[in-house]
């Protein structure tokens, strides 16, 4: 368990390097939406999930297309085999295009068809309570993903039953598959919507390790009165300036060596 935000910052740089490697070797993948959730995931995995404990806390990456971020973290944690990150999206690999729990048992859920992860998180939440365990569930949604109706079925249930062992993050990178959120379905007043469903709504900088650390810590210590929705302002493609806020990097179908090198150079600048 690593609580030092300076250490966490270094880990985030390494994770971004690994995301680049994964997608470079795989020659395809959702790079922009993987880079936007690095801090959110690292702060959870490196502080609150202990893979050596069978009763560990769980994390559901409902926006499953950000799988490379997850795989990069597993590798950083030493949970993947040597050079396994070179197998992304290849036949026989445990690292499928979207997370596959059948192949990779480190996952708490295989995801990819959007909108379904928050319901799975509720299942874990209720299961922990049934077993009298005080474990917690972390769930990451995309800001486009919340257009799926099932998210609001789940929100209604969490809010109604005030499930206090789930924390829900929205990766607010402002883009979705084809266009920006603003060009697709610019839903207004997210705060009012989640609050009316019974949540406490927090809005933070999703790349700020101090803020993420503080919220997770207070959540674990049950310092909030209501279920939490943490809207994270993030940057799609974060860490690589030519990818930032450029939705042509939502999903890429190839990565040339010179682009890989240029991107790597940008990530290393922050090291």
């Amino acid at each position, binding site marked *: 368990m690593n609580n030092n935000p300076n250490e966490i910052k270094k880990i985030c740089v390494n994770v971004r390097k690994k995301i680049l490697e994964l997608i470079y070797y795989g020659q395809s993948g959702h790079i922009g939406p993987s880079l936007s959730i690095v801090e959110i995931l690292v702060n959870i995995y490196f502080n609150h999930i202990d893979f050596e404990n069978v009763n560990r806390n769980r994390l559901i990456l409902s926006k499953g297309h950000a799988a490379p971020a997850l795989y990069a973290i597993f590798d950083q944690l030493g949970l993947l085999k040597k050079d396994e990150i070179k197998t992304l999206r290849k036949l026989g690999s445990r690292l499928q295009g979207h997370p596959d729990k059948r192949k990779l048992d480190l996952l708490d859920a295989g995801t990819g068809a959007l909108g379904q992860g*928050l319901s799975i998180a509720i299942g874990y939440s209720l299961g922990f309570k049934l077993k009298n365990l005080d474990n917690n569930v972390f769930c990451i949604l995309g800001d486009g993903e919340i257009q799926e*109706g*099932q998210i609001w079925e789940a929100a209604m249930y969490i809010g109604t039953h005030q499930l206090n062992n789930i924390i829900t993050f929205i990766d607010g990178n402002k883009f979705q598959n084809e266009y920006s959120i603003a060009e697709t379905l610019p839903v207004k007043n997210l705060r009012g919507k989640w609050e009316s469903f019974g949540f406490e709504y927090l809005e933070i900088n999703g790349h700020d390790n101090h803020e993420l650390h503080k919220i997770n810590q207070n959540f674990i210590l049950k310092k909030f009165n209501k279920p939490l929705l943490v809207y994270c302002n993030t940057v799609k493609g974060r860490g690589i300036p030519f990818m930032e806020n450029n939705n042509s990097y939502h999903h890429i179908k190839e990565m040339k060596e010179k682009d890989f090198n240029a991107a790597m150079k940008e990530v290393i600048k922050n090291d």
Partner: protein
Amino acid sequence: MIKSLRDAFGEKLVSEGEKIQNILAISCDLRNTCKLGSFFKKFPNRSFEIGIAEANAIGIAAGLSFLGFRPFVASFGSFITGKNIEIRATISYNLAPVVIVGTHGGLIGADGATQAALQDIAVMRSIPDIEIFQPCSPIDVEKVLEYVVRSNKPTYLRIGRNEIKEFFDHDHKFKIGLGNIIKNGSKNLIISSGPMVRNCIDAIRHFDNNQGDYGLLNLTSLKPLNENFLINTILPYDKVVVVEDHLIEGGIGSIVSEVITKHGINKTVYRHGLDNEFIESDTPEKLAKKYKLDSFGIFEYLNGLP
């Protein structure tokens, strides 16, 4: 003994629930209709009312199953199997050991087509690694449940609301993949499943002199299905007739036809069921008559075969 299949399901789930602590019940605002009500009363802590939100219920059940529970999510078969992508991506893709219970299959009565599961078997068997069972009598329901509560596999259970006069005794065994030969015959074999089996038994009785022509095979285990068992059962017969309260497109007739084709057997399969249609509203008896799925209708159908 006459009992509805769903009542037999509800009672057996409670008695198994007493023995097996990880069984849970999940309702989508149909807990009494789907006969989870007794389980809810007996085990309130192991029962969850999700409301009219089947997709959410499927996801919640999956999460619970990952922690070692055996959740039974029940709703009308039409509603719950309508959640195709949730069953596919949350349950099947993750091999989540959830039991989906679909009631109100076939000729349900006055509520009409929207509430009736007419394509559920076709939908569910197209999704990988989900076992599909449709018990045909109250005792068969009990025997299937004894398997299902222990199997720990993703499962679809199609449970009729029909009142069925029992035709098995308590020695009856459910064996995964195998069917039950209810009656041997000398010429033609009827294959059926679920509540239609009882109607087929009665249909054969309408024949005066040639009852002996017809054999009857019940298939409770629709997936998996032991193909060698099916082929060996079919081989001695001339004609194969499949009777089902489901669309013939993708249903039990399709299953039988696929196995016969795969094994290169030269038999005609006559498929008697609903054909590319929705049912109408009226009493189950009148519907069965209209669609020729009551015992007289089946008898007529058999008589009219070439």
